[in-house]
């Protein structure tokens, strides 16, 4: 029942806003729909925590601690981002970068986007998962190209082509999976359902599954932004409207990674952990290192934080690749704190860019002087994302690193060097933007910075204290991932 609401509200919102998205009160409606979604998600979460995993609608939908935690996260960040986008989009309109038609498109697509992501998370059918993920791509392509500037078109085009091609590979992987499952379960719908696949996962044909996993990894990995499949990501983040960058970094990457992890669990059943784990650790490590070195060359602020997203997705992938309760726990935790922190950063960045009218970091100076909230938000957010205690990012990184030291000592130097380089790069660029003489102008609408500090507060709390029920929740999910 809650599932219906969780999926229904955003869908409804999408259709509604497609009609009325250009009205003055559309942003409020947008936020409202996201809020209802959040409420429904909360209800669903409570239900799952109490009653344990469940399926619905002839097993087409499936909820367990793993995906419900992502559902809650998605709904939450979706809501805060909607709050942030309210003044942000107004200001954009005021600056004349958007007209009402575009606003309508934006609002409707925003809801559709969250709908597709939630569908992707909740669907028990791997085929539907694929469909939803592709749908998310389509929605975000429209969002990325919202400004219709050459740059945004180029970014959107690359995003579209690369992700579609990637996801097509994933479809082939799914077909192979189906091909293998059919032999065990027999033809018909059920052999694409996660629940059924898990039951028989140790009987599936290993060679097929290894092939399938390669295709799935390349396919979904493109969307996660794993190096060397990441090339669409910085462009798309840099050129789209900032709320979209926030949800891309904060949510879409998580969802794609969710798909990877699900398939990994499936494949591990047949092949044992080393195969998939090794691949994922390799990709994760590569992403971390390469992204870290990319960071120091950035001029565009959003582009830089896009690369930092790649880096952190690399860390999470590495963690899940290592496997084991602690690493999986750390991975989940890192997903959470990264979404919160990164979206908070993008909120601050959004207003900062609006104040200066540029995304070029060399032209942004003295935020703390002109608007302390934005300045502190950006400074603290960046330090948090760089893994500075007492923020939660450090917590998960600590767990990942310590586990890595146990099980794969060879990897730790790479990770640590990458972390050091990333710190020097990002911090060296953020500091002059935050400090120094200011060069900013006033905004036509008061910026919404409550979300920034709510997120950062949550991350801070997670840094020093993880509530027991959350621990329990993560533990269940981690146990599933293994």
């Amino acid at each position: 029942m809650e599932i219906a609401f969780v999926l229904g509200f955003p869908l409804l919102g999408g259709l509604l806003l497609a009609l009325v998205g250009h009205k003055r009160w559309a942003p409020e409606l947008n936020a409202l729909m996201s809020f209802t979604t959040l409420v429904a998600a909360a209800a669903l979460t409570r239900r799952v925590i109490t009653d344990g995993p469940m399926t619905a609608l002839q097993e087409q939908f499936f909820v367990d601690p793993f995906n419900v935690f992502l559902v809650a996260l998605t709904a939450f960040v979706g809501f805060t981002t909607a709050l942030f986008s309210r003044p942000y989009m107004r200001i954009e309109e005021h600056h004349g970068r958007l007209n009402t038609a575009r606003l309508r498109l934006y609002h409707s697509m925003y809801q559709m986007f969250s709908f597709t992501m939630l569908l992707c998370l909740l669907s028990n059918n791997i085929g539907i998962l694929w469909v939803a993920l592709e749908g998310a791509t389509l929605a975000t392509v429209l969002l990325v190209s919202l400004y219709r500037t050459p740059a945004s078109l180029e970014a959107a085009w690359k995003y579209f082509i690369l992700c579609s091609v990637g996801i097509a590979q994933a479809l082939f992987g799914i077909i192979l999976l189906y091909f293998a499952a059919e032999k065990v379960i027999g033809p018909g719908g059920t052999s694409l359902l996660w629940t059924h696949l898990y039951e028989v996962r140790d009987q599936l044909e290993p060679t097929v599954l290894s092939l399938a996993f390669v295709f799935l990894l390349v396919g979904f990995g493109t969307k996660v932004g794993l190096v060397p499949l990441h090339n669409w990501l910085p462009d798309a983040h840099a050129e789209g409207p900032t709320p979209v960058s926030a949800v891309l970094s904060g949510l879409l990457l998580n969802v794609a990674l969710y798909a990877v992890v699900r398939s990994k669990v499936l494949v591990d059943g047949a092949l044992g952990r080393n195969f998939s784990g090794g691949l994922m650790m390799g990709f994760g490590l590569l992403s971390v290192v390469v992204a870290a070195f990319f960071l120091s060359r950035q001029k565009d602020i959003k582009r830089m934080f896009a690369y930092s997203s790649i880096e952190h997705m690399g860390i999470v992938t590495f963690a899940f690749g290592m496997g084991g309760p602690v690493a999986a726990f750390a991975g989940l935790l890192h997903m959470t704190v990264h979404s919160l922190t990164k979206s908070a950063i993008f909120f601050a960045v959004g207003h900062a860019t609006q104040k200066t009218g540029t995304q070029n970091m060399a032209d942004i100076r003295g935020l703390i002087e002109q608007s302390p909230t934005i300045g502190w938000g950006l400074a603290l957010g960046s330090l948090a994302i760089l893994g500075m205690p007492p923020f939660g990012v450090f917590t998960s990184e600590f767990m990942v690193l310590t586990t890595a030291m146990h099980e794969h000592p060879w990897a730790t130097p790479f990770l640590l060097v990458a972390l050091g380089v990333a710190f020097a790069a990002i911090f060296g660029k953020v500091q002059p933007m935050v400090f120094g003489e200011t060069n900013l102008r006033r905004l036509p609408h008061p910026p919404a910075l409550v979300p920034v500090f709510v997120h950062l507060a949550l991350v801070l709390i997670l840094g020093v204290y993880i509530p027991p029920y959350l621990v329990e929740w993560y533990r269940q999910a981690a146990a599933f991932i293994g």
Partner: protein
Amino acid sequence: MDHSLSSQFVNLLAAFLLLLAFAMLAQRRVLTLIKLFAWQGAALTASTLIMAYATGLGHLYSSAALTLLLKVILIPWILHRLIDRLQIRWDIETLINIPTTMLIGIGLVIFAFSLATPISQMASGLTRATLGIAMASVLLSFLMMIVRRKAVPQVIGFLAMENSLFFAATSATYGMPLVVELGVALDVLVGTFIFGIFFFHIRDEFESLDIGNMEKLKED
């Protein structure tokens, strides 16, 4: 018509698909590309029908109908409209010259077969080689997307890849569940529309559909 016959038909069609993939790889005229794409769709429909007939699985019929509607009629029609409106006739020369591309393509085919053989042993009696062929044509379409320089052929390459995937689905596994196929079809359709819109924007912004213009966003 017994199994062996239908399987021969399917294999024939599979070979035909592979041939078409090569043809598309070689073809420079956009209009012809679209025709070839439509042909691919037709072959796909045929093979699906045969499968449906041979296995008697009802949902394969509907998927065949879907393919016919979408890939033989609707999408080619849209593409026609597009290139008429955009006045695209020729693709400019590809990144790598045609013969080289062909050679690479052949290499890919061999590779795909060598990958698929161990699997196809356990494939259902009806469709032995098809999986390898499907994989090969997927890779070929991929290659085509890499070497093309204009937006439209690139998109056609993408759609061709989608076709090969469908072929894999139907021939190797008696088709995916209907809901999935519908969803995929929907995505493909919407995708095509969006591509269509993009063509216009791109042309307006860049005065051409040459993706060589779209190299501004990079690391320097």
